[in-house]
């Protein structure tokens, strides 16, 4: 069973629909009750970091997630803001995140008027390490990004891919059972569906 975490931010319906399309049973949950061993989580997110972390706290999700992810080692995929929330700290709101990975979130700063914010559109990945998420990928898979802040990893070996938008930034990381992607697989056609299937199959 895949649990899509509802903390008030993110396009839960789109993710659920994508999982339906690839044939995986899923449910949207805010209270995270009735979790079985082997259940996997998706932490979605679109919006402001501070609102995200406050909502996680408001809905009593932080302790539960720490338990499921850090202790019970359920697999979890963070998408966009969801990925960012897994880090230590974000400049968006200047507040602390869940601290599951040694990284922080920074705002893109450009010395050029050719680059607009947010980074919005389709981009490719520079694969940095073998990751189950990328199994059976073609050379040129493209994904949809929309963000003004990016993840800066202190722990370099968790970086599984980077992408280029003025600078080279971390577009996905993996640390044991914890995965994060800056892009939106549920909005990235077949490439996204393939990635979701990889997350769920392995």
């Amino acid at each position, binding site marked *: 069973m895949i649990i899509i975490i509802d903390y008030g931010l993110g*396009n839960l319906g*789109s993710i659920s*629909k994508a999982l339906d399309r690839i044939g995986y049973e899923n449910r949207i949950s805010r209270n995270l009750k009735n979790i079985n061993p082997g259940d996997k989580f998706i932490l979605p997110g*679109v919006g402001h970091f501070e609102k995200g972390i406050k909502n996680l706290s408001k809905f009593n999700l932080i302790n539960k997630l720490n338990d499921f992810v850090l202790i019970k080692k359920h697999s979890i995929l963070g998408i966009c803001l969801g990925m960012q929330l897994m880090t230590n700290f974000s400049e968006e709101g200047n507040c602390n995140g869940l601290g599951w990975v040694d990284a922080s979130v920074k705002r893109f700063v450009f010395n050029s008027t050719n680059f607009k*914010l*947010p980074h*919005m559109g389709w981009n490719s990945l520079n694969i940095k390490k073998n990751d189950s998420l990328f199994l059976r990928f073609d050379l040129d898979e493209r994904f*949809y990004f929309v963000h003004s802040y990016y993840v800066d990893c202190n722990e370099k070996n968790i970086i599984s891919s980077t992408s280029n938008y003025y600078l080279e930034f971390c577009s996905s990381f993996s640390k044991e059972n914890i995965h994060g992607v800056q892009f939106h697989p*549920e909005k990235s056609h*077949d490439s996204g569906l393939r990635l979701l299937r990889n997350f769920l199959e392995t």
Partner: protein
Amino acid sequence: MFRPRIIPILLLQDSGLVKTKNFAKPRYIGDPINSVKILNDLKADELIFLDINASKKKQCMDIDFIKNIGDEAFMPFSVGGGFSRIEQMKAAFRNGAEKVVINTEAINNPNLIFEASNYFGSQSIVVSIDVRKTFFRGYKIYKNSGKVKTNLNLFNWCREVEELGAGEILLNSIDRDGMMDGYDLDLIKKISSNLSIPLVAAGGAGMLSHFKEAIEAGAHAVSAGSFFVYHGPRNAVLVNYPNLEELQEVFR
């Protein structure tokens, strides 16, 4: 590598897909959901749906319709037409829309831009601006599907829209709409150089090279209507989208 988006704009009128010329003479094209299926199969970057009657009818785009689009589209899509309240936008997002496009309602109530971008995040709010060239080579902004002239200054309005928190501006040349003769590159150049948010150009695309020209003029993304629904010298209706090779050729 980052590639600029190429976005079909689909116009809705009473649940049918239509195409206009200079914002007039809507011609029936076909079933909109069918078009979504086709464009989804053809891997379109993104879709924009605009209900051209909604403002007039004082209601926003039908939410069931948005849900139907959401069920077929595995890429981001925007919806617009008569959105004037946060509650309406909430329903649109809940049913799968990535962004909401506001135009007339933003002109009538600029605070809506601030309210909506604050609530949903800038990246979710697109302000659409429709312009016609004036006799003295300036531009006039029109609202209500091009029917009502305003006295807004284009540069000032763009700046205000950006300051109020819009994530993107969709800039539509009414003069070029449906003509398939190229974008208004001058307009794109003038406006994009004064913006730090993305500009999506609309109005005039007839060939792949037009997309390249618009991007080089400063558009962050290009959108088109006729280009994606017509084919051939007699404008036969054929919903289409360039394939990967054609796109790579454009952006080499």
